[in-house]
């Protein structure tokens, strides 16, 4: 019996702590995930011009850049009943889609892969054998012995100088690494290639939004007026051609590198298809309208909820229903006017910090009291997992043919049953499956945009309600978005042209929030229960499952001391 603490969890975005209680066999009996950081974005929004909110809230996170920006403008557009031009809806789809593709590839290689790939083992691989493997696996052209030998030499130089650099502090040599040396070398080589490649998909944001991270948005559409003369503004014929090329290259990378590697690696870790999912509840707000954000039936990712793994029964979700989405703070460092036990819909949301944790260095948190800066979002009182697994399951359950075909193909290749989806491996495979589905859909949106422009419709922005003089005295609305990590929404209340209340409920809060006083655990905590650690000093098993959720903690915690008091001092030494 003991407690394993992983703090900070690395290879994520933000600040996360996991405390896992073990029994005598090294098996986790209870896990608690704790958000150890706060900021103040929702409070900062109060009193400001609603049209500015996208710029501030987008800075909640630069990893999932665009996600909060789009959710924010959608919230204001919903409140003010602004309908945006079709081209703007398409461009937002292309930007969100590009975000997914970049994010999922980077997550797989640069955040998750090191849990499964032993970098040091790659040093003993045969580059020629690796090349032969690559030639069998996919048509990807970087498949020569020299190509893999070059990576191996680079790695060798790192290791021999004793400076592992980005590969420092890994659990290399841990017996739970199962891949042959050649696959390790293949994966490390693709890690390097992906690092270079991901800069290109980001250019979709730069073209339509000026830069990545943090492209520009605007309430009422998109600010990127399409150039009627070549070269005058960023979005001209040449740039649109470039977007088409980038999409094609992205599809090739996803198919021939990411998915190919995912399947190759998954084969060796089929024991991870039976653990890592403990809740059975899944939620998606839906996204990628084609092309009306108020018409759910056109969403590429459908909206819905699944309880108890009942795939055949996808339930409807209404973001305005105060009995559905609620935030609890039973074990969170906040207070509510109505008391600790209140469950608030975000229109009535409050984000008032009340820190009661340790004041200095500490060994363990008091898990019976408040222990996290994350709130506990609930849907009809249930904790819900959000993210790729939720989306793929909902699409599967609703009979989406492309997704069903891909899922069945993947399960057949890995010789796994449908139930394997409810696991760490399933979640990781779902990320790849939805990435491919999106990449394959991008050309459809792209061609629609080019067709509209060719037909003489290049409108991207509706000016008619941009000025506050056109707004009602009071308004409220919700802006949703399915971000790479899951269901996101911003709820806004506008009074006399200024923001009265602003609440963001973000994917990692759903997934990593603390348990509530009804005894219900969140997805992370439920997923870790039952994992047996081979070596508590090297909790690789915890990392494998936590990383499969792709934590984004900067999004999950969103409050700081409203008096502007300093909560943290950093000393540079």
């Amino acid at each position: 019996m003991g407690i394993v603490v992983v703090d900070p969890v690395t290879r994520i975005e933000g600040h996360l702590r996991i405390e896992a209680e073990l029994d005598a066999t090294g098996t986790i009996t209870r896990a608690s995930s704790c958000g150890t950081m706060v900021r103040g974005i929702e409070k900062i929004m109060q009193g400001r011009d609603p049209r500015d909110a996208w710029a501030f809230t987008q800075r909640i996170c630069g990893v999932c850049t665009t996600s909060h920006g789009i959710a924010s403008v959608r919230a204001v557009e919903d409140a003010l009943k602004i309908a945006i031009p079709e081209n703007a809806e398409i461009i937002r789809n292309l930007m969100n889609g590009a975000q997914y593709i970049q994010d999922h590839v980077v997550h797989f290689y640069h955040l998750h892969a090191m849990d499964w790939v032993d970098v040091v083992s790659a040093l003993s691989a045969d580059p020629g054998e690796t090349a032969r493997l690559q030639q069998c696996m996919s048509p990807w052209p970087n498949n020569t012995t020299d190509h893999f030998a070059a990576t191996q030499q680079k790695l060798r130089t790192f290791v021999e100088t004793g400076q592992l650099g980005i590969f420092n502090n890994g659990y290399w040599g841990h017996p739970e690494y199962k891949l042959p040396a050649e696959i390790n070398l293949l994966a490390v080589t693709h890690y390097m290639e992906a690092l270079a490649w991901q800069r290109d998909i980001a250019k979709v944001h730069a073209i339509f939004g000026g830069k990545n991270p943090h492209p520009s948005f605007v309430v009422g559409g998109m600010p990127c007026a399409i150039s009627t003369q070549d070269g005058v503004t960023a979005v001209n014929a040449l740039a649109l051609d470039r977007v088409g090329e980038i999409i094609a290259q992205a599809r090739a990378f996803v198919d021939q590198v990411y998915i190919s590697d995912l399947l190759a690696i998954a084969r060796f870790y089929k024991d991870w298809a039976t653990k890592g999912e403990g809740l059975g509840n899944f939620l998606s707000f839906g996204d990628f309208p084609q092309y009306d954000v108020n018409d759910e039936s056109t969403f590429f990712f459908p909206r819905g909820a699944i309880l108890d793994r009942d795939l055949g029964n996808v339930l409807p979700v209404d973001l305005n229903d105060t009995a559905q989405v609620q935030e609890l703070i039973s074990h969170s460092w906040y207070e509510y006017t109505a008391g600790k036990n209140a469950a608030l819909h975000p229109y009535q949301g409050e984000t008032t910090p009340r820190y009661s944790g340790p004041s200095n260095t500490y060994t363990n948190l008091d898990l019976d009291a408040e222990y996290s800066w994350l709130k506990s979002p609930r849907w009809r009182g249930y904790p819900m997992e959000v993210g790729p697994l939720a989306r793929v399951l909902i699409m599967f359950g609703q009979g989406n043919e492309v997704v069903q075909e891909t899922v069945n193909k993947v399960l057949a290749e890995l010789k796994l049953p449908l139930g394997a989806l409810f696991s760490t491996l399933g979640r990781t495979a779902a990320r790849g499956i939805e990435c491919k589905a999106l990449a394959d859909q991008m050309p459809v949106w792209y061609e629609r945009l080019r067709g509209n422009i060719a037909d003489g419709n290049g409108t991207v922005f509706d000016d008619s309600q941009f000025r506050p003089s056109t707004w009602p005295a009071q308004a409220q609305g919700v802006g949703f978005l399915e971000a790479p990590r899951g269901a996101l929404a911003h709820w806004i209340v506008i009074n006399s042209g200024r923001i009265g209340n602003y609440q963001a409920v973000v994917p990692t809060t759903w997934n990593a929030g603390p348990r509530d006083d009804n005894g219900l655990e969140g997805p992370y905590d439920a997923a870790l229960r039952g994992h047996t650690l081979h070596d508590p000093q090297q909790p690789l098993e915890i990392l494998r499952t936590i990383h499969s959720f792709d934590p984004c903690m900067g999004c999950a915690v969103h409050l700081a001391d409203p008096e502007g008091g300093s909560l943290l001092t950093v000393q540079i030494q």
Partner: protein
Amino acid sequence: MKQGLFAAKPLVNAPGCPPNPEVLTGTIAHYLAFGAVPELDDVLRPKVYYGRTVHDCCSRIEHFNNERFAFSFDDEGARLGYCLALLGCRGMTTRNACSSLKWNQGTSYPMYSGHGCIGCSEPGFWDKSDLYRDEGAMPDPNGICVAPPPSPIS
């Protein structure tokens, strides 16, 4: 930040939300090549990157010089690349390299893609004024230069 805790370590400010990565790598590369930080201004920003405003080298400068402004994000002027000063652009008071170095390996920058500069490398920029009601900014008569021709998206 005006000075570090240790006088012996050089301090360079590279502001921006986020800072342009070429500014960061360029500063480090300069130090590695010459053993010294590049020339800094009075708030310790490298002059090579922060010496001019983004207005100085903006692709829309000729329109500014000839008082051709967009009045809306998608009107005829916007589609012709007219100046965004009336839509809240803070380029005239923002020192950074965005319009010369550009972003994402020379692909674009906010004004080129149609939205005004929000001034993200200037101190206190979040609280200066609302983004679209920038009553404080006046056109700077000295901010005139010949802009480089807009380059094709690479």
